């Protein structure tokens, strides 16, 4: 089931070094790309149907086309390498094992959108990854792939790494921009969207690492070759991080559209220790949970996930076995989002703390069924009332646990029947 598009060099020793990477095709698409008009590059990406791999799945080529034309301001590309959604560990492989793939993708994107300054926002905890990426960038500069004349062409491009300081919310694209600009990482109200007024008030495209790293294949082999993988609305391949209670947790590149349970069974070796499955988190901690029954009809693509009232997310699949205490899991989940709430908007700032205290009270054996009802109501009261979707990233999964595993919550209530 596994394919090798993004991950084709992952198992090659020292592929992070330019010399080795070049032997395996790094920067080979540039000649072709620079021979194309930039608009054609964008069209190729549009035609490939590549969707943003950060979690929201917005079509990448379409996003680029939102850039206003004829402005006398610089255009920025910001690569989102904050990768902080719990259960997500895909971009880190690209950063350490094939950083030149990312740089090649950056060159392609910047050429298409007319950007000469790219910032890579990398989470502060990624120290090894930053070193590997910086080493690759330095090598690319030395070899002339970055700088005044990219690969000998009349195109200037500088790439700068900006390290975050460990805030989940800085993965939200406008909080990320605030952070690069030197302010507290708090999301901005939209509109204006970053494509119109982003970094330093200039038009800015923000793409995930994996999105950018997908570009060399698309440009080298054409949109049709990319669409050969995946489904009609979810073309291509994706790096899935499968973790939790499976025999073979790890990062696997798969075409989109495969059946979820089959992937868990055949790729990740199935539920560990011969236990039964209780639930699956399909795409990172913020996606609503699926029961085994729901998982049975789910395929790994955007449309199937939406049909099951959850989200494709970041490809971070977590398998939960029958021993998992859903109430404790919910507590951990709220704890994380409460800790990471930037504190800007009232509902998220005050509400998540309240929800956390209610669950803790329940776990202490001091909660009632009315508290469970209140918890459920608070999910509705908080969600989508805020500047960004961090609050929803907490309330959507919490609501799914409350609705699908209500009996487990009730079992903790003092007034349980």
């Amino acid at each position, binding site marked *: 089931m596994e394919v090798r598009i993004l991950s084709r060099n992952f198992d090659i020793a020292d592929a992070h070094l330019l010399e080795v990477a070049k032997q395996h095709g790094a920067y080979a698409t540039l000649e072709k790309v620079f021979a194309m008009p930039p608009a054609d590059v964008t069209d190729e990406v549009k035609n490939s149907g590549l969707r943003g791999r950060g979690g929201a799945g917005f079509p990448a080529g379409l996003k680029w086309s939102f850039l206003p034309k004829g402005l006398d301001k610089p255009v920025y590309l910001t690569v989102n390498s904050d990768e902080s959604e719990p259960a997500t560990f895909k971009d880190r492989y690209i950063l350490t094992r094939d950083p030149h793939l990312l740089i090649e993708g950056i060159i392609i994107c910047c050429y298409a959108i007319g950007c000469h300054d790219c910032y890579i926002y990398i989470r502060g905890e990624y120290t090894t990854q930053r070193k590997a990426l910086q080493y690759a960038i330095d090598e690319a500069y030395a070899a002339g792939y970055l700088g005044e004349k990219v690969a000998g062409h009349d195109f200037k491009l500088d790439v700068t790494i900006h390290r975050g300081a460990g*805030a989940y919310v800085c993965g939200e694209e406008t909080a990320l921009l605030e952070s690069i600009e030197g302010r*507290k990482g708090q999301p901005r*109200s939209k509109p204006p969207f970053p494509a119109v007024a982003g970094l330093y008030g200039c038009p800015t495209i923000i793409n995930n690492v994996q999105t950018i790293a997908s570009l060399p294949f698309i440009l080298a082999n054409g949109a049709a070759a990319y669409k050969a993988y995946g489904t009609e609305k979810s073309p291509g391949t994706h790096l899935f991080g499968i973790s939790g209670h499976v025999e073979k947790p790890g990062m696997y590149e798969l075409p989109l559209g495969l059946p979820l349970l089959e992937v868990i069974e055949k790729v990740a070796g199935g539920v560990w220790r011969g236990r039964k499955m209780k639930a699956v988190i399909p795409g990172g901690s913020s996606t609503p949970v699926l029961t085994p029954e729901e998982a049975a009809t789910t395929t790994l693509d955007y449309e199937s996930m939406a049909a099951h009232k959850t989200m494709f997310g970041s490809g971070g699949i977590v398998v939960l076995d029958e021993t998992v205490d859903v109430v404790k899991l919910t507590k951990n989940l709220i704890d994380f989002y*409460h*800790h*990471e*709430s*930037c*504190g*800007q*908007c*009232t*509902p998220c*700032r*005050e*509400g*998540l*703390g*309240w929800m956390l*205290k*209610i669950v803790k*009270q329940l776990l202490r054996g001091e909660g009632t069924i009315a*508290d469970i009802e*209140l918890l459920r109501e608070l999910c509705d*009261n*908080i969600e*989508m*009332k*805020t*500047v960004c979707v961090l609050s929803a990233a907490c309330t959507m999964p919490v609501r799914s646990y409350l609705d699908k595993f209500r009996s487990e919550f009730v079992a903790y209530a003092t007034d349980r029947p």
Partner: protein
Amino acid sequence: MAETVKLFVNGQEVEVESGKNLIDAFKVIGIEIPHFCYHPALGADGNCRMCLVGIEDGRPPLVPACKTPVAEGLKVQLDAEKIKKIQHDVMELELINHPTDCPVCDQAGECALQDYYMSYDHQPSRMRVPQVLKGKKMDFGGGVIHDQERCVLCARCVRFTRLITKTGELGIVNRSDDARVTTFPGRQLDNRYALNVVDLCPVGAMTSKDFRFKQRAWFLTRSPGICHGCAKGCNIYIDHNCEKGGDDRIYRFRPRHNHLVNGYFICDTGRLSYHQENEGRLAVTRLDGKDCTLDQAVETARRKVENARKPLFLISPNCTIEQMIAIKALAAARKGKLSGYSDSYVMAGDGDDFLIQDDKSANRAGLAALGIDITREGFTQALNEADLLVNFNNDLLRSETNSAFAEKLSALTVIAVSSHDNDLTRKATVAFPVSSYSEYGGTIINQDQIVQRFSIAVIKNDPAPNMIEVVRLLGGPITEETAITKAMREAIPVLAGIEATAFPTAGLNLKEKETDHVTA
């Protein structure tokens, strides 16, 4: 009115001024959209989420009104159940960690949380878990005391120090419900406008050291007035109260919005200058340093004025135009010299580029409008020839401290007409107490040539007379209101075309053409 657009509120068509956001545009037509973080001087931040309104067929269907400009045909929903529920939900969340210590909170009675609770929430608390505890009565400096638990994190104060004073002393540290407003370690609020954060704070998180625990807000009478602290003439509210068995006292000044003069703010010095209205006042008439009746004082003073060969009338640059006209007429009738010399009111270099001016007098432009000499040469020459000095509230001794001047003064007969007790009133042959600017009304012109009118705010149990009354008692020929008004209209022709009742509340800009003031 500027350009307008037509849009719908709750299905009803309304016409509002274009270019404004929904909150400001609807406020003009009497529709309230609740909000904490938005303030017209500080812009829209969008953090409180209290102003979320529905937009029919809108994308997104829910928007913060503070960040949404009015647009032709927009269908705004304010009374939909969904919007009411959001307002209720946001209020509940604002209040869960709020100490609700209204009985000991200065803000009670003028608190957005209280008002909005009554209007938009009005439900018992469902909070059954411990509240978040934060810092209490933190001395931020600048006369500001902060309570982090009462704070709703609207960041108005933070934005004020960043956008208005550009001093940036305040910030919000921490995240989530641990977020709190604070100062940098070892640093304090240190700017001359710091107390404005107390007014800006929609709740009781920022309180004034000067005012806290002095009065409950609902006992205070809020009268409009004009600050006499400098030549800017900032518009203020004079908050005063006469407690049972006591006298009418001022408890605070607060800024009153005037787009022509001071915008939304006032300086701290001006704000605290109310103390001078309460304290150090001249209370009784005096004759040769001894208390006397008004009749005795008038008899002596009138005789001295009539008999003086070369009387000098000195006038304060804080007097109203009306008072100046009365004094000028008295001086002319007595063939005396008239001077508005008042260098002592100027503190060179003290002003800034915002509100504070070097000139600490309220109506120097009024002296100029009436052609009253203010030069030092004119004053000293007149003083050297004079045998009588009648001083109308000019605080001359603030700058004239040399002994030669004191010697000259001691050789003179002095009649002091004064609101405050000072060295001059104590040395004067006759001293008359008069009302101060919170106790009379009149017309003044600020340094930007804006004519402003104000009226009586405070009425004392035993009111001191207006200066014009003393001028009348001393034989002034123009002291009746109609005569003064006539003289004023002659001196400032633009006033002639405006009925007193039609005088614009924001004032009249003399620099603009007269035709600009003609109402259609």
